[in-house]
């Protein structure tokens, strides 16, 4: 799906990303984890073709990502950003409808309205559709953007790719699970998702693969069982931890302290 070779990114003299190789297959849910300042968001940004500086070697669906036409690319991949604008004086439904912009010219078609409504239901913001975006709480705004990003990828194209940068910020427990279930459902249809997460236990429960980063480098990459070992995690985070089996799901469960 997406392959990147030797990604480097520096800001002034400081290496934010240092020679990272990454490859994500069809239907894979990859969680990027790591301590603050490890370069998680930067990596996501570079992969999503947001960083124009320098030549990055990224191949999306067997074609260099820079060779894709902008509008066509937007039907294959979408990105949920960490810092969403606070000042959008539009109704919630208009914000979600933005996700359908790649599909129509002046007038939304029936399938655009359907996609908008469906995603608003799934992310539990349908009852807010006529509210002004600016009046929502932080968590509600996050859900609106999740709804927009998911609506963007409602189409018949096979193998789509979703980038999410800390989608769980400000969400309550129920909506954290709901959001992850939506993403999981998406990847189960042979689509892929690359998600920056902070909660290691949620990552262990939902992700197929984990990429652990530290200081702009890959510290570990593999299945949750492979990456989440007490030794690796306490080294990466500089904090002691214990790992046991989750009593229900049998995934690794990380207990800090």
């Amino acid at each position, binding site marked *: 799906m997406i392959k990147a070779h030797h990604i480097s990114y520096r800001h002034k003299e400081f290496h934010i990303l240092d020679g990272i190789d990454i490859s994500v297959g069809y239907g894979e849910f990859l969680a990027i984890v790591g301590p603050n300042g490890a370069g998680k968001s930067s990596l996501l940004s570079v992969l*999503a073709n947001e960083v124009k500086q320098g030549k990055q070697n990224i191949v999306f669906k067997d074609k260099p990502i820079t060779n894709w036409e902008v509008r066509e690319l937007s039907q294959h991949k979408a*990105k949920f950003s960490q810092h969403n*604008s606070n000042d*959008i*004086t*539009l109704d919630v439904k208009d914000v979600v409808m933005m996700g359908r912009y790649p599909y129509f010219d002046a*007038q*939304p078609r*029936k399938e655009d309205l359907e996609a908008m409504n469906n995603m608003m239901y799934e992310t539990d913001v349908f009852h807010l559709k006529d509210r002004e975006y600016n009046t929502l709480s932080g968590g509600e705004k996050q859900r609106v953007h999740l709804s927009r990003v998911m609506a963007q990828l409602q189409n018949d194209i096979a193998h789509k790719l979703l980038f999410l940068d800390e989608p769980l910020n400000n969400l309550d427990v129920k909506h954290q699970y709901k959001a992850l279930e939506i993403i999981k459902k998406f990847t189960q249809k042979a689509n892929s998702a690359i998600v920056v997460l902070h909660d290691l236990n949620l990552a262990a429960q939902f992700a197929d693969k984990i990429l652990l980063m530290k200081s702009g480098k890959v510290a570990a990459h593999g299945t949750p069982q492979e990456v989440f070992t007490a030794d690796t995690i306490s080294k990466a985070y500089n904090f002691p931890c214990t790992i046991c089996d989750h009593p229900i799901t049998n995934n690794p469960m990380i207990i800090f302290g």
Partner: protein
Amino acid sequence: MRTQSKLYFYLTISAVLLVIIAVWSLNTGVYDFGGRSAFEVLGKVIAGDTGLSLSDKYVICDVRASRIVMAILIGSMLAVSGTSLQGLFKNPLATGEAIGLTSGATLLAAIAIVLGGHFKQYLPEMVQFSLVGISAFLGALLAMMLVYRISTSGGKTNVVMMLLSGVAITSIGFSITGFLIYISKDDQLRDLTFWNMGSLAAATWTKNIILTVVLVISYIILVPQGKALNAMMLGEKDAEHLGINVERLKKQIVIITSLMVGTCVAFSGTIGFVGLIVPYILRLLFKSNYTFILPLSTICGSILLLIADTFSRSIVAPSELPIGILTSLIGGPIFIAILLKFKKSL
């Protein structure tokens, strides 16, 4: 689909309103058609009645009608340029006047008027003819690029920087224009004063044709960008993820708004704040949804300027109030109202 028919509904209503105001404006004025109404005379002009006195015909066609058409064209372009600039800078305070675009255009137009005589003969004939217009466009473009460079980095606009660089450009323009007034001869002085106050009195059909050409070209490119301007509210990176070619969009807005503002300044001088008032009113009704406010500004700008112009030439009849005074009188308080609303976020 419902939203689209809602847009057409409002477009129709405002178009009807514009026609009514145009009719009222045509019949308003000092000139007396010997007891007949202006419509009667217009009917006769259209019918090709030879019994019509030349002065009647002149007043209807070349004074009132051409002036009304010019108000419609210029009002529309000023409003659309204001709305697009606000979309580009993601802020309702961005207008040609606030960010120094108008001053840039006025400054270079003034230079062309006063110093043009010295180098005019070295230029090709086409350029000679439209020297003032081209200079105004270049002035607007230079000011625009300067403000954009100063105030925007990494796709984020610093509103304070935007407004302050506008202030700086305006004051540079002001001082150089003042110097030009000081050194200019009598007839040039008259031209310069006209620029600074703004007036539609010099309307002719030739000018209207040029304005129409500029308007059509600009609108074909700009008016369908409502969606793109909405997406820009998410930030430039996220707009690009929605399939918007952000770099191209920004270049289009910079060049086209400079072209529109430059042309308007070249033909009617500085008529301030139309690009602020119209989107402000439309935002009260449609929030910031550019798929509504961009197409609607095309007609609402005309409505505003036509009303203002009709007042300006009838309120102190037989004399005439410079129209820039009227629009700034409405625009100033609205500017403050927007400032107050943004007090916290600035």
